[in-house]
């Protein structure tokens, strides 16, 4: 049975979080299909990557270890992936919807002349009846993604040109260990046989990657502000509340666009998807672009002057009032009542 394949990103010997998320989701697809889960990883000093991915249920990993393969460059990675995918002929290939995956996957789709669905948030397996052909296609990939600025969810399928490819949004799939003792077969790729000079016409001259100082994804409490916060100055109330509760501060796209808060704290479809225990939305109206990234929070409190704010429909508690007054009161009563 043809496999499900995942392109894993690696930096400094470590498989990227997004790739582990996708492996977890891909394992479920592979189980539904009753097929192997395979992965490929290209970079430098990769002796430890097998042990990082095994427990996610990877049956086989293809490793290309060469100093020219890190940091990522499109052409050499595409050339190696092409060799592997042409030979293994998987039914599904998944990439992260990251700056690497969104660069490489479309190039691969063009090379393999197949379909590609961007930025999926749900993956599933299902059937489809094609009326024209009067034929039922079994076990297709359902690549489900938000479309039209997030106002709709579209289920995209591809029954006639294989493999079926998709990029998967970061922070959406849950990382889940499949079996700590899972045995993964390794195949090392001889890159010298594949690569030639022309694959290296793009050269990296300089590179600055900031380790992010925020970790919204893992925060159990998030205090987020929207355009309704009114100013950068007013965000101090949110920071103080987050501080007291041991949470992180986030913002809607409107708050980021207005310059109230930094881009790396943006929550929503174009930012980070979060699922904390408690989400406090202050001055956020609740555009679908935003709620798509936070609606799985266990508990939601909305603080808004507008009693009709759309986000209130999602909220467990709605406080109608000015956040500048409400938040200090929350801090006060938390300090008074918490042990």
């Amino acid at each position, binding site marked *: 049975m043809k496999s499900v394949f995942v392109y894993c990103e690696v930096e400094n010997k470590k498989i990227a979080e997004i790739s582990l998320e996708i492996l977890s989701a891909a394992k479920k697809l592979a189980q539904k299909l009753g097929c192997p889960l395979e992965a490929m990883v290209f970079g430098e000093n990769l002796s430890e990557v097998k042990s990082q991915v095994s427990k996610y249920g990877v049956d086989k990993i293809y490793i290309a270890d060469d100093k020219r393969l890190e940091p990522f460059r499109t052409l050499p990675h595409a050339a190696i992936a092409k060799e592997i995918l042409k030979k293994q002929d998987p039914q599904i290939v998944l990439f992260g919807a990251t700056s690497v995956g969104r660069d490489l996957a479309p190039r691969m789709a063009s*090379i393999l002349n197949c379909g590609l669905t*961007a930025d999926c948030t749900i993956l599933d397996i299902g059937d489809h009846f094609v009326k024209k052909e009067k034929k039922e296609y079994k076990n297709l990939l359902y690549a489900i993604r938000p479309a*039209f*600025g997030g106002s709709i969810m*579209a289920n995209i399928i591809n029954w006639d040109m294989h493999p079926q490819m998709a990029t998967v949004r970061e922070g959406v799939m849950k990382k889940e260990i499949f079996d700590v003792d899972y045995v993964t077969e390794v195949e090392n790729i001889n890159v010298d046989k594949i690569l030639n000079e022309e694959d290296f016409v793009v050269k990296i*001259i300089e590179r600055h990657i900031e380790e992010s100082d925020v970790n919204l994804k893992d925060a159990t409490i998030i205090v987020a502000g929207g355009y309704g916060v009114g100013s950068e100055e007013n965000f101090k109330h949110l920071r103080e509340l987050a501080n007291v509760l041991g949470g992180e501060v986030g913002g809607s796209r409107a708050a980021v666009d207005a310059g109230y808060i930094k881009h790396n704290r943006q929550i929503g479809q174009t930012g980070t998807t979060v699922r904390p225990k408690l989400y406090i939305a202050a001055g956020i109206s609740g555009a679908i672009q935003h709620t798509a990234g936070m609606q799985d929070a266990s508990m939601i*409190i909305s603080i808004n002057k507008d009693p009709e704010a759309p986000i209130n429909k999602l909220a467990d508690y709605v*406080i109608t*009032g000015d956040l500048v*007054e409400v938040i200090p009161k929350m801090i006060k009563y938390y300090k008074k009542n918490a042990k």
Partner: protein
Amino acid sequence: MRPLKIIVLAKQVPDTRHVGSDAMKPDGTVNRVKLSTVFNPDDLHALELALNIKDRVPGTEVTILTMGPPKAADIIREGYYRGADKGFMISDRRFGGADTLATSYTLAKGIEKLAPFDLILGGRQAIDGDTAQVGPQCAEKLKIPQITYAEEILELKETEIIARRRLEKGIEVVSSTYPCLITVHGSSPECRRRQAKKVMKYKYARTQTELSSRNIDELFIKLNKERPYLNIPEWNVEDLNADITRIGLAGSPTKVKSVNSIVLTATETKHLTDSDADIEQMIKELIIHHTIG
């Protein structure tokens, strides 16, 4: 530095940033008719980057290439108003319904007609799909390297171009040989405004399709005859010598199975005022339930 030949890929898109409630049909699909159309924002950034290169390297030629229905000729005119030198339009019903694979095939056929070229520029992504796929797919079809998410051209040398890329968590400075395809990030400079002179010069520019529409003013026909530069060339399937199985719906592997509008799920909501009593009560409940504390 020798003058460069630059092709800018630009798309007319529905303005999804302003989707009102009337833009959604009851079945949850988008009513495109209700949405106004705009020059795709990232493509405007790409145009600016091209015009900036033209400022730096005299003699550089900027050509706009767009694909779309007859109305998309607006994109060519807008390009002229802001400083583009030439514009070409790919338009044919048979190209309709294309996904990114079929679109990139079609655009690549158009680009080949405009060869030779040094640079292809396009926006990182279009707001009606947000896929960011067409750029890299075009590059592959043309067998040229790609630089994605560029925000500034740092240097133009005889044999290579140096650009800064905006990544999720940082930046990267890369060089590439010519020709190459560059997708432009929204963090690059905004596009310059229209120039009044150019608007005067090009406002009568029309495609043949537009000129043959029933309600066209005679003046347009007359001026387009007198001033050939006003004529916006249009290419159909035959002009591009395109393989009919690789364009439009037939050439598109991805199909929409179903579409659901996102409905906010209602939970049992407690409505509170901003009074001290209400807020203290809520905090107490949260502590009891171990949500906080």
